[in-house]
C-alpha cells in the first residue's frame, strides 16, 4: 500500500503529458479553405500550375453580423501562387496569408479551361488521394471559357460563400433538372484511371472583374453570376467538347444518374406544349457477344406525371395517355441517341461500356481492350429500349383551355 501515493502522482503526471497530441490544430491558427482552383500557369516548368485558394473570412460568416446593413468586408478572400506541382503552389501561398491553410473543409475544386484543354488533367488529382487531410467527397468542376481564379473571386448573392453557392446549385440541379451531375472527386479519379471522363462545367455570366466586388450583390439582379453549365467530355485527360441540353441529359440518362427532370412533349398541334415531370428513371446496360462482336443494350424505364398542359386535351382517357407515353419514349430515346452519337464521334467511352463487356466476356475484352476506344467503340451496335409510364395527371384531368 506504500506504492499508492507514487502511483497517484504518476497518474496525475501522465494526464499532463498524455493529453493532447502532436498533431493538434487550434482553430484560431487556421485559415479554412473552402475551394481550390487550378489553372495553367505559364509554359515554364517552374510555374506549370497556378493554384488559387478561397479562404473563408470567419468573422464575416459568423451569424449575427451579416443580418442587417451593407457588408463592408468580403466573406471570402482568394490567394494565388504558381509552382510546378499543386502541392508546391499551395505551400507557396503561405507568405501571403495570416495563418496556416486548413484543407479538410474543402467544398469545391474548379479547373480552368485552358489547363483542361491544353495540358490535360489526368495527373492532377494524385495529391488529393495521397494526403489524408483531403476527403474525396467534394465535386470537381471545369470552368467554361474562363479561368478558375476568376470563378473563385465572384461575390454571390443569397449564399455568402461562393463555393457553397455553386455546390448548392449543383445539388439542386441534379435533384430537379438532371442535366448535370455532381462529379465527385472520387468518381473523377476513378474515371481518370481510364481513358474517358465526363465532368460538369461552371461558367461566369457577365464581367468577372465587376463580379469581384461587394457591389455585385448590392443590386437585385447581380450583373455577374455563376452558373452550372455543360458536361465536358475528356479523353485521356484532355477536354474535347462540351455537351449541353438534350445531349447532356441523354448522357446522364445512360449513366443512370437522372433522378428528376422535365420532358416536353407535343400537345396535339402545339409543339412542346405539354410537360412531364419525370420522377424516377432507371437505366440498365447489358452486353451480348455475337460473332465475336459486342452489342450493347440500354434499357431505360422511367416514370412521371403531367405537370403542365397548353392545349385542350382530355387526359382522363387512357388512350391519350398511352399516346403520350409513346411520344415520351421517342423523346428520351432521341436524347440518348444524341449522347451516344457525341460519344462515338469523340471516340470516348465515358459510359464505361467496356466494363460491361468485361463482365460479360472477360476473354474477348482482353483481346479488344487496346483497340476499343479508337476502333471498336465507334462501330459498336447499341440498342436503346425506352419504357415510359405516365402515372397520373395531377389534380385536373382536362385543362381549362377550350
Amino acid at each position, binding site marked *: 500500500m506504500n506504492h499508492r501515493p507514487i502511483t497517484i502522482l504518476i497518474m496525475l503526471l501522465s494526464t499532463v503529458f498524455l493529453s493532447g497530441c502532436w498533431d493538434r490544430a487550434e482553430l484560431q491558427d487556421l485559415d479554412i479553405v473552402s475551394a481550390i482552383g487550378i489553372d495553367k500557369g505559364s509554359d515554364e516548368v517552374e510555374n506549370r500550375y497556378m493554384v488559387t485558394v478561397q479562404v473563408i473570412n470567419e468573422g464575416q460568416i459568423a451569424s449575427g453580423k451579416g443580418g442587417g446593413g451593407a457588408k463592408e468586408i468580403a466573406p471570402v478572400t482568394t490567394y494565388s501562387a504558381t509552382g510546378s506541382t499543386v502541392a508546391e503552389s499551395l505551400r507557396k501561398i503561405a507568405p501571403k496569408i495570416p495563418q496556416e491553410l486548413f484543407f479538410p473543409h474543402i467544398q469545391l475544386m474548379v479547373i480552368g479551361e485552358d489547363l483542361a484543354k491544353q495540358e490535360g488533367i489526368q495527373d492532377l488529382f494524385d495529391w488529393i488521394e495521397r494526403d*489524408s487531410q483531403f476527403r474525396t467527397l467534394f465535386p470537381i468542376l471545369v470552368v467554361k471559357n474562363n479561368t478558375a481564379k476568376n470563378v473563385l473571386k465572384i461575390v454571390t448573392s443569397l449564399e455568402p460563400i461562393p463555393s457553397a453557392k455553386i455546390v448548392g446549385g449543383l445539388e439542386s440541379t441534379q435533384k430537379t433538372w438532371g442535366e448535370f451531375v455532381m462529379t465527385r472527386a472520387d468518381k473523377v479519379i476513378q474515371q481518370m484511371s481510364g481513358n474517358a471522363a465526363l465532368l460538369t462545367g461552371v461558367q461566369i455570366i457577365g464581367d468577372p472583374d465587376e463580379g469581384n466586388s461587394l457591389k455585385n450583390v448590392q443590386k437585385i439582379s447581380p450583373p455577374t453570376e455563376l452558373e452550372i453549365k455543360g458536361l465536358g467530355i475528356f479523353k485521356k485527360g484532355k477536354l474535347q467538347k462540351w455537351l449541353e441540353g438534350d445531349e447532356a441529359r441523354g448522357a446522364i440518362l445512360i449513366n443512370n444518374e437522372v433522378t428528376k427532370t422535365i420532358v416536353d412533349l407535343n400537345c396535339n398541334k402545339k409543339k412542346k406544349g405539354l410537360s412531364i415531370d419525370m420522377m424516377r428513371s432507371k437505366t440498365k446496360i447489358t452486353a451480348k457477344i455475337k460473332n465475336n462482336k459486342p452489342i450493347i443494350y440500354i434499357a431505360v424505364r422511367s416514370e412521371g406525371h403531367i405537370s403542365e398542359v397548353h392545349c385542350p386535351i382530355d387526359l382522363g382517357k387512357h388512350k391519350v395517355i398511352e399516346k403520350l407515353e409513346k411520344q415520351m419514349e421517342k423523346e428520351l430515346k432521341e436524347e440518348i441517341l444524341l449522347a451516344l452519337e457525341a460519344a462515338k464521334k469523340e471516340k470516348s467511352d465515358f459510359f464505361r461500356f467496356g466494363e460491361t463487356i468485361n463482365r460479360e466476356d472477360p476473354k474477348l475484352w482482353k483481346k479488344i481492350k487496346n483497340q476499343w476506344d479508337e476502333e471498336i467503340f465507334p462501330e459498336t451496335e447499341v440498342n436503346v429500349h425506352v419504357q415510359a409510364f405516365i402515372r397520373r395527371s395531377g389534380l385536373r384531368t382536362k385543362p381549362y383551355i377550350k
Partner: protein
Amino acid sequence: MLGLNHQEMRDSSTMEKAKISAIQLFALMFLFEMGTAVIISYGIDAKKDSWLAIMLGMCVGIILFFIYYFLFRQYPNLPLTGYTRKIFGKYLGWIIGLLYIIFFLYITVHNIRSFGELLLSSTMPKTPLLALIILMLLAICYVLYLGIEVLGRTAEVFIVILILLGLTGNLFIFFSGNVDLHNLQPFLENGWKPILKTAFLETSSFPFGQMVVFTMLLPYLNRPESMKKVWLFALILSGLVLCWTASLNIAVLGTENVERSTFPLLSTIGKVDLFEFIQRLDVIVVFTLLITVFFKASIFFYCALIGIVDLFKLKNHQQIILPIGCILIFWSMSLASNFSEHIGESRYVDSYITVYFHIIIPLLMLVVTLIRNRFKKNDSSESNLT
C-alpha cells in the same frame, strides 16, 4: 514413463499459473486474426477474386489446425517450445524453440511498426514514430505484466467493441450507397493462377497460419477439450469476416483503387456521407486497427516471453518484460527505413520464411511423432509377446 511424467510436471510448473476460458480464447483468436489483415489491402493480388483467395487460405488454415491439434493431443500440458524438445531431442529442439521465439518477436515488432506507420500516414502525420511505438509497447508490457488472464478478459471486452464498430461501419457503408457489386464481376477474370498463388503464398500464412502461436497458449485452457471447437470456429468466422471486408472494399472502391491504397478500409469508410451529417468516420477504422494490433502484438509478445521462460528456465515472465520491450522498441525503429521497405520485407518474410514456421516444422514434428508412436507400439507389442 515415470521419468517422462516427472519432467512434464517440472516443465509446466515454470509456466504462469493461470487459466483462460473458451470464450476468452475465442476472443483472443478472433482479434488476433483481424490484426492488420482487415485494414491493409489483403489478398488483392488475386484482383476481383480476392475473396476466393482468402477462402482458400482459410481452408489451408483448417488443414494446418489439424496438424497443430494432433501435436497438442500428444502433449496437452506443454507449449510449443516444450514439445519441440520432446520431439527433436534436447539440443536440436532447443534451437528450434529459440527460432520460434525469434520469429514471434519479429512478428510482434512488425505489427507494432505497421501500427505506427498506419497511424502516422492516416491521422497524425506530425507525430514522431518513436512516440507512438513507445506508447503502444508500454501498454502491451503493462497488460502482459498482469498476465494472460488479464489479456483474455480484456479481449472479452474489446471483442464486443470491435463487433459494434464493425457493424456500424458496415451499416453506414451500405446506407451511403457506394456499394457497386459490378466491381466484383466477372468471376475468374484472370483465371485460377493468381488466385492460387495468392492463396498459398499470402493469405494462408497471413493471418491463418500465424495461429501457430496459439500452440503456446493451449496449456492454459481450463477446458482443453473445447479447444478444437473454439479454434475452428474462430478461424472460420474470422476468415469469413476478412473475406467480407475485402469484397466490400473492392465493391466500394474498385480493384484499381484498392491496389493503390495502403489502407483501403480507410478510403472505403471515408466515402460515407449520410445526410451531410454522418461523415468522416475514419475513427472507426483507426480504433479497429488499434484494438486488433494491440491484441495481435500482445499475443505474439507473450508467447515469445513464455517461450524464453521455458527455454532458459527462468522463474517467471514478469522479470524479462521490460528489457525485451526495450529491445523491441529499437528493433521496430530499425526494422525498415521507410514504409515501402517495411512492406517489401513483410512480403518477403510472408512468402519465404513463414512457411517453415507455419507448415514445415509442425509437419516434421507430426511425422516424427507418428514414426515414434509406431516404434513404441511395436516395442510394447513385442514386450507383451515375450
